[in-house]
């Protein structure tokens, strides 16, 4: 049809059942596993906070949206294992760009990013999340604020990925992203979809064999235990 062929292409779409639209507030499109959402401050299994008030996250933040002040742990009732704890912890979500650099900077994996980003606060005070709002509850789950829109199960898998691939140094996991274990969620299986296609030393078959199965869990379990002891 030459010039007029395009008219048939668009006309053929009329009345089709399949549409690209997601009816957003009613239903949500699935989010990628590594979406950067709002932060949580994690805790250990014994309820101790992981944050040690080192302010590295505040230092690395390019948007300068994190405010941390550390304080010495009370001797009789310590908040975190070790000497210091995060006394004040505030993140201003009007400035945060969700770059995840704070997560990378954190030495104790205290701050991670969840997948939740759908909030609409109506004043600036709500936009500044304080420690009470950021710290996870006793089960290790993020606390839902009134202005946040989550659905069932969206707070799952809130932990961020590890900074390094193959965190324990095992050659089988070269080029494979590992996840840190979090209270309430356990450890996620290492993810095999990054760098597989251009990994030189690791064959994809090896990754399929180990990734996402028992070995990976053990490996990372000890890894996070190490961190716990380090904190003490």
């Amino acid at each position, binding site marked *: 049809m030459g010039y007029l062929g*395009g*008219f048939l*292409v*668009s*006309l053929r*779409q*009329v*009345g*089709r059942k*399949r*549409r*690209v*639209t997601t*009816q957003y507030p009613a239903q949500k499109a699935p989010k990628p596993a590594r979406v950067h959402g709002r932060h949580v401050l994690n805790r250990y299994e014994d309820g101790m906070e992981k944050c040690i008030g080192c302010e590295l996250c505040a230092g690395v933040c390019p948007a300068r949206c994190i405010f941390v002040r550390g304080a010495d742990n009370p001797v009789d009732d310590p908040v975190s294992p070790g000497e210091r704890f995060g006394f004040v912890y505030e993140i201003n979500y009007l400035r945060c760009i969700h770059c995840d650099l704070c997560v990378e900077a954190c030495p104790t994996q205290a701050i991670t990013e969840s997948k939740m980003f759908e909030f609409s606060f109506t004043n600036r005070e709500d936009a500044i999340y304080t420690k009470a709002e950021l710290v996870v509850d006793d089960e290790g789950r993020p606390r839902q604020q009134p202005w946040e829109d989550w659905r069932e199960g969206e707070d799952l898998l809130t932990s961020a990925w590890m900074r390094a691939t193959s965190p324990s140094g095992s050659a089988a996991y070269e080029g494979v992203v590992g996840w840190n274990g979090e209270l309430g969620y356990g450890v996620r299986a290492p993810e095999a979809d990054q760098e597989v296609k251009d990994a030189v030393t690791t064959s994809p078959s090896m990754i399929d064999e180990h990734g996402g199965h028992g070995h990976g869990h053990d490996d990372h379990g000890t890894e996070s235990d190490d961190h716990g002891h380090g904190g003490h």
Partner: protein
Amino acid sequence: MFGGDPLLAGNVDLAVVLIVLVKVVVVFGLLLIATQLMIWFERKVISDLQNRIGPNTAGPFGILQTLADGIKFFFKEDLVPERADRRVFILAPLLSVVPAFLLFSIVPFGGDFSNGHDGSVELFGHTTYLQLADPAIGILFALAMSSVAVYGVMLAGWSSGSKYPLIGSVRASAQMISYEAALGLSVCAVVLTSGTLSTHGIVVSQAGSGWGFVPDWNVIATGFVPFVVFFLASQAELNRPPFDLVEAEQELVGSYHTEYSSIRFALFFVAEFMNSVTMAALIVTLFLGGPAGPTLIGPGWLWGVIWFLVKVLVLLFVFVWIRGTVPRVRYDQLMDLGWKRLIPLSLGWLLLLATFWVARDQGWNGFLTIAIGGAIGLVGYLLLKAAIATSRVRRLEGVVD
């Protein structure tokens, strides 16, 4: 001066004035509702063509979406830029929306035109046409109004005191003025065929059908070419895609209405869609027989309204279909199409048509006349091509800029 409407032919008493007033209110209301439905229709159809859903929350099938948008516009802050020329800035949207309203007043939207009826109806003992006004200048009024609308666009851009609106308005006025020539020349073909300027007369001349089934529409009587030219030129005149360079967001933000907000922007928006409806109605009037059509059961004037609405709706769908399919043309392509294709084509066709009618009146050999006319047209086309080619060569050589 008031033309052929029998309502105003005799004594003008209170009843006549009241009938005219009722007609004004009805046409005004219908046009507003039609515009609102057109915006909804366009959004719905274009989403269908683009595999989307479109508005579906406000009212059934989202039909009240436009109403919601309109209410929102009223409550928005009305900004006037500091460097704007205040008076002209406020005047411009009105210059754009008032012609859009006036344009519809000459469109016949109903009446019985079948079996030799002249489309008049009885209202409270008075005979009248189902159109607001039937001036003797008829279709010239439409051309005049669409020219006045250019002022709205141009002054809006100029008075904004900002560069993108200015560029956009210069583009818009250049585009509208150059396509008005093609538009006017194809209207001439219709006027030549129908023998009258009055829109009612044009519709009457298209009533009935040849051999029982081929409608006597001008689209056939003028030989299809003026219809195509008018259709393309009307899209350019309306600034609709693919000729919406005026509103090329990537280049010009929002063009002439960049600095407008609140209800002033809404006026431009309404004028644009109202012009789409009116232009479809004008095409129906000029080329597709207006409200003329067969009467099945019931009163004839109602069938006139139904045929008119059906034809307008089909045309509006085609408008949206074109928008959903064709990508925007470049500015030089736009000007090439206007000046080098549509204007020569409609001019040549008008001459050929005039020759045809003269030949019929004088009783010349029709075939021979058309053959000679066609040959002259071909020579003219070749000369035009040669002229364009020569000028291009000279431009490339750097003889002229």
